[in-house]
């Protein structure tokens, strides 16, 4: 929660500096953010490759629950596809935003680079909304859709921000499932976003 607020305050400060034209426009013309993005992608990759300890814990997960990240990804994309018929956005746009899976920082940055600032802003807001929905709806979801539902709703955030809520409402026995689900969904985000953006 605290980490999210710090991230959002960086966005807010940038936003204010931009609106009041304190931030020099020329700074955006050097593709500086692209080089930072490459550094970020390398670090994200590094943290994926460097986690043998985390992966070992996942061996205790029941075989059918192993498919939970897959149902989350397919369900997310299928659900979001409905929005193609409700707005003027292309399937590529909508699926790219939904592929963020609640990982708003990374997805908004990537989508801004690929598709421009407008869709990047939608991605930031949509994925913040998803995190908030997952946090608020957890007790309701457990009641009507079973103990896996709050984990699916949390998307890529189930090993950090939404983790405490999931353990509380689904039960302690779902904590490894929650971490596993967050781990797999999280690492699929950059690939899914890139794939969705490349759809014509």
């Amino acid at each position, binding site marked *: 929660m605290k980490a999210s607020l710090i991230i959002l305050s960086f966005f807010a400060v940038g936003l204010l500096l931009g609106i009041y034209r304190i931030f020099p426009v020329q700074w955006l013309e050097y593709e500086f953010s*692209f080089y930072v*993005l490459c550094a970020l992608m390398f670090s994200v990759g590094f943290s994926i*490759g460097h986690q043998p300890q985390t992966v070992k814990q996942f061996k205790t997960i029941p075989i059918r629950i192993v498919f939970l990240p897959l149902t989350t990804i397919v369900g997310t994309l299928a659900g979001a596809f409905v929005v193609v018929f409700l707005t003027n956005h292309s399937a590529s746009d909508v699926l790219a935003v939904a592929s963020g899976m609640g990982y708003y*920082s990374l997805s908004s940055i990537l989508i801004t680079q690929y598709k421009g600032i*407008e869709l990047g802003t*939608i991605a930031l807001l*949509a994925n913040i909304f998803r995190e908030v929905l997952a946090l608020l709806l957890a007790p309701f979801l457990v009641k009507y859709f079973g103990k896996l539902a709050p984990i699916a709703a949390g998307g890529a955030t189930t090993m950090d921000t939404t983790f405490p809520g999931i353990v509380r409402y689904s039960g302690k026995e779902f904590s490894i499932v929650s971490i596993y689900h967050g781990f797999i969904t999280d690492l699929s985000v950059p690939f899914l976003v890139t794939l969705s953006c490349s759809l014509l």
Partner: protein
Amino acid sequence: MHLAPIKEFEACLTGGRVNIILTNIISHTNLMYTVLLFIILGIFTGFLFRNQKITFVNKVITVLIWLLLFLLGAEVGLNDQVVTNFHVLGFEAFLIALFATFGSVIGAWLLWRKVK
């Protein structure tokens, strides 16, 4: 991304709309390949160093995300079109979030009925 207008201008000089579209597609694809290349390079490097205790990567990621979100904020703030349409973008974002969450919940519900 920000060099796109220059590339379009070059494309105009060399001829036709088709060329503009082609240049855009090529620069887009290159961007994606570059990003994926950096992730894959990172995964390999991370795997090579798997036996060393390296904890600072997560701090590096956090700081880079701060920097990029600051830049993203500035870019949004400098773009009057995005600022004035913020409520429209917000509503579309809410729709996508709602349907995406609901879709994933249905997926989890179907799986839950199998494992229960």
